[in-house]
């Protein structure tokens, strides 16, 4: 206690860094990136490599942010996998099939996400059914509705739409022919979510909710409103990705989007968010997303069997869960001494 303050401050700063939940994610990213930089060679380190993994990271990253917030608050959202195609279809239907202005199509697509998110939130906060089950149920319902309406109104499972130049440049353009504009959107979302979780008082409510829901309610936190708001945010972000996909690929499909379910959860967990809720960070989620994207694209540049990529992702996920658990107990022990 009376040891020289200087060395103690230095030690505790290092200790504090080691105890930060992001440290594991940063290490994971550094190892994975170095590995593929070595195997992938100059192409991977050049613009083609960077753009390919950043494009993937941006898409899944926009969804991983709210999914991460939900996980911190103790909830899962599986329905994002059905919101992406549903909102794509809505936008393409409104603007492509019915030839309404792009803005109407975009607004329609985004409201699909908000509405589905609202339904998720209400079902989860009003009943005692776990969100995992609720959102699986909602996912299948939305999938069915999307397919049903597509066949009913269009008679096919895909709709094409050619956006005007401005819409395309805002939501679906490739900068330099390589970097998707959604990378910039992703950065914007990161800033907004960082503010919400780490700077605003609202972030404290999210952590409290994941820590102990009952106590949070006793402390006067409007728990149902927070839960509904978070589900609406994840619906909105999934819908945003769906809308951006229409603008990029000029086509919407009823299928697809399923990959986002597990990919977003993996990004979040690799990013150090506890599956049980109560802890996590935006920086961690971003690092987890980047790690996932580097592996996902790195295997092509390294000319490896895609199955090897799955093995790496799986191993990373397990390592992340184990180290998250380890970091948590380390944190608690270090604080206790």
């Amino acid at each position, binding site marked *: 206690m009376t040891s020289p303050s200087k060395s103690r401050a230095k030690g505790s700063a290092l200790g504090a860094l080691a105890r930060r939940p992001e440290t594991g994610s940063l290490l994971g990213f550094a190892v994975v990136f170095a590995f593929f930089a070595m195997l992938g060679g100059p192409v991977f380190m050049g613009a083609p490599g960077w753009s390919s993994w950043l494009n993937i990271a941006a898409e899944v990253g926009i969804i991983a942010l709210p999914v991460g917030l939900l996980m911190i608050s103790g909830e899962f959202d599986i329905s994002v996998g059905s919101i992406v195609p549903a909102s794509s279809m809505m936008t393409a239907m409104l603007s492509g099939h019915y030839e309404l202005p792009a803005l109407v199509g975009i607004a329609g697509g985004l409201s699909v996400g908000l509405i589905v998110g609202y339904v998720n939130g209400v079902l989860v906060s009003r009943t005692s059914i776990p969100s995992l089950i609720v959102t699986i149920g909602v996912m299948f319902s939305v999938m069915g509705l999307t397919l049903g309406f597509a066949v009913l109104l269009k008679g096919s499972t895909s709709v094409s739409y050619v956006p005007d130049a401005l819409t395309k440049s805002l939501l679906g353009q490739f900068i330099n022919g390589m970097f998707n504009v959604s990378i910039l959107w992703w950065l914007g979302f990161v800033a907004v979510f960082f*503010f919400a979780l780490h*700077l*605003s*008082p609202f*972030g*404290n*409510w999210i*952590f*409290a909710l994941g*820590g*102990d829901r*009952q*106590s*949070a309610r*006793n*402390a*006067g*936190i409007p728990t149902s409103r927070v839960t509904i708001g978070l589900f609406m945010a994840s619906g909105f972000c999934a819908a945003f990705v769906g809308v951006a996909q229409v603008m990029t690929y000029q086509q919407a499909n009823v299928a697809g989007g399923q990959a986002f379910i597990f990919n977003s959860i993996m990004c979040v967990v690799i990013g150090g968010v*506890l599956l049980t809720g*109560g*802890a996590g960070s935006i920086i961690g989620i971003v690092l987890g997303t980047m790690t996932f994207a580097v592996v996902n694209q790195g295997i092509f540049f390294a000319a490896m069997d895609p199955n090897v990529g799955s093995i790496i992702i799986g191993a990373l996920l397990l390592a992340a869960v184990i180290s998250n658990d380890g970091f*948590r107990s380390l*944190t*608690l*022990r*270090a*604080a*206790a*001494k």
Partner: protein
Amino acid sequence: MSERKPVLEMRNVDKSFGPIDVLHDINLKVHEGEVLCLLGDNGAGKSTLIKTMAGVHQPTRGEMKMDGKAVRFNRPKEAQEMGIATVHQFGGTYPLMSIGRNFFAGVEPTKGWGPFKIFDRKTANEIAVREVQNFGITRIDDGDRLVGGLSGGERQSLAIARAVYFGARVLILDEPTAALGVKQAAHVLRIVNEAKRRGLAVIFITHQVMHAMAVGDHFAVLIRGAIAADFRRGEKSREEIADLMAGGENMASLEAAIDADVQEHPAE
């Protein structure tokens, strides 16, 4: 001393859930700077009683008074606004959040303006550490520490300090020492004494007679939803209280019954 108005008073309170009567004719008073110990075995109705006080349940019959005026709480929030705070065993603390964030959960201090109000971490940490230290927990000196690293007693102390800071006048402590070791329990009992010294009315729920006797001024024993005994400090011995809690049955006769059972069914 006895002429002072009680802060919280229950008069002939009954509580039933449908056809099931849980509380019968409860009469209780608690004054400022006084610790009322509610003793009772599991299922005696302790938790229904404190939930009624805290506004979770409403009395079926009878009335509740605060400062002599009749009150009715429709929601826990209304009771909280009147200054009735409940601290549960481990409730009110989040292990993976810092002390400062825990202390201000739900009522975060902010700085900045408009939609860009940000959580004022520095102020939160300063106040949290100061308030907890004022309760004698000097080991807590860094508001950024995680609560999960604190001992059970320290977590209780943090929750109590929080309730007091946010204007509690009646502090309901629901089995605060139940899961704690001897040293930790002593810690919490000191905090209870400090709260009493500051003039709070404390309602201390426990089934550990020793802990009750260490801090209590006034004792009420609850058996099957009714107050079986109501006495002041020094009027009854530890054995008498323990016997009362066992349902009025003498512990000695209970032991005899167990012995008889053992003799009838001897171990193989």
